[in-house]
């Protein structure tokens, strides 16, 4: 069995697509919901909340797919992936908290961060931190 390490040659585009397909759906749904909410300010609060939170569902599906993928890895690679994802999630969480804290206190931030971090930027940030952590942790076990 070869280690199926993200970023390696064994990590085929097909595997990548299966794993990250739901992320694409999340991104599309976020764009659509953002557009719809901006053009329908008269909708009820409940409808607006449902629309705003709709990207959560494919996000949950993505987590489920990822958990299944990790379950199929060999034990060392599973440990590396769980550790590195945890680092990625904590990093993204800290960034979200920092941006929220700055927003709450009215400290001027670039326009992109003015409304906090939405789904995709937060996931992309977590992904970047994960890739770095994954490379560092993998090196530790070489």
């Amino acid at each position, binding site marked *: *069995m070869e280690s199926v390490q993200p970023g390696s040659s064994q990590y085929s585009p097909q595997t990548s697509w299966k794993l990250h397909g739901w992320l694409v759906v999340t991104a599309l749904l976020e764009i659509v919901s953002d557009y719809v909410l901006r053009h329908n300010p008269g909708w009820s609060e409940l409808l607006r909340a449902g629309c705003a939170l709709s990207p959560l569902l494919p996000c949950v599906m993505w987590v489920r797919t990822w958990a299944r993928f990790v379950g199929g890895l060999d*034990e*060392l*690679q599973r*440990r590396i992936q769980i550790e590195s994802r945890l680092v990625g999630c904590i990093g993204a969480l800290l960034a979200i908290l920092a941006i929220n804290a700055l927003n709450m206190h009215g400290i001027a931030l670039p326009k992109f961060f003015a409304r906090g971090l939405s789904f995709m930027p937060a996931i992309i940030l977590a992904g970047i931190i994960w890739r770095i952590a994954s490379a560092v942790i993998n090196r530790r*076990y*070489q």
Partner: protein
Amino acid sequence: MKNRVRELRTAKNWSQGELADRLAVSRQTINAIETQKYDPSLPLALKIGRLFKKPVEEIFETDE
């Protein structure tokens, strides 16, 4: 944790890849175990013991 995996493997003339295939893990896992950077799970340790026909405590020992 100290272990004799490398010694037992070389005695059988197996490469890390061969041992990895027999245990259904990656070569990286075998290398990490042999260099004592990673302690295997109990099921894997038992599998190693069974493969080399030795009790686990003869292969693995704690650093004391």
